[in-house]
């Protein structure tokens, strides 16, 4: 067999090194490119909201500049008049909007915190926001779980849906 690094023995060395230190052969064995934060299955072009080579997420809708008639550009005129962003003043609807449209951004986290403060809880596995339906007593409650009727926020239909659930506390996100 070929004795140097250009034959199978060389490849074997590669593979064995990879098992001990994958960083050493990251170029040859590569990495899972689907983890680079690009939606490679998107039917839409990616470059339109490409967040840049260092970003883990695409741009949010509001980051993308579109050229609109200048008359639309009101921010220059009113920006000093707008109140600063204070999430505790906003309705839940807007908080959900901020949560779902600011992926990978501090704003997503801030919205999450405000929802938490309003007794919403994020179910890590269901990946849904839930809250107890006011006035509905729980059917069961222990130190680790409870069962009852909850409002779940359905982002697809953008509305709250009542649902009977068995909720284990450890599956709920703590305070963000």
């Amino acid at each position, binding site marked *: 067999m070929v004795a140097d690094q250009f034959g199978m023995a060389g490849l074997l060395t590669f593979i064995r090194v990879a098992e001990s230190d994958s960083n050493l052969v990251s170029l040859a064995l590569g990495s899972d490119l689907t983890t680079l934060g690009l939606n490679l299955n998107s039917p839409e072009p990616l470059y339109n909201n490409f967040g840049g080579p260092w*970003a883990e997420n*695409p741009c949010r809708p509001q980051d993308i500049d579109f050229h609109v008639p200048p008359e639309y550009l009101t921010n220059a005129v009113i920006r000093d008049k707008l109140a600063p962003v204070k999430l505790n003043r906003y309705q839940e609807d807007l908080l959900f909007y901020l949560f779902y449209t600011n992926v*990978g951004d501090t704003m997503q986290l801030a919205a999450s915190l405000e929802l938490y403060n309003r007794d919403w809880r994020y179910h*890590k596995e269901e990946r849904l926001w839930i809250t107890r339906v006011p006035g509905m007593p729980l059917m069961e409650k222990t130190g680790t779980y409870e069962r009852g009727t909850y409002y779940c926020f359905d982002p697809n239909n953008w509305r709250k849906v009542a649902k009977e659930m068995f909720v284990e506390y450890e599956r709920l996100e703590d305070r963000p």
Partner: protein
Amino acid sequence: ALSKEQQIQHQSLEAAFYHMPHPSDSERLRHYLPRSPYMTPPYYPQS
């Protein structure tokens, strides 16, 4: 082995590595909700 020139290049690259461009450097100034990427928990919606 890297040549002398390549070593110097690497030093410059390394120095630049500690002040990476921020996404907002490439975008018009936004007074409201400028983009500030953050590593949110993986179970949050990612797209």
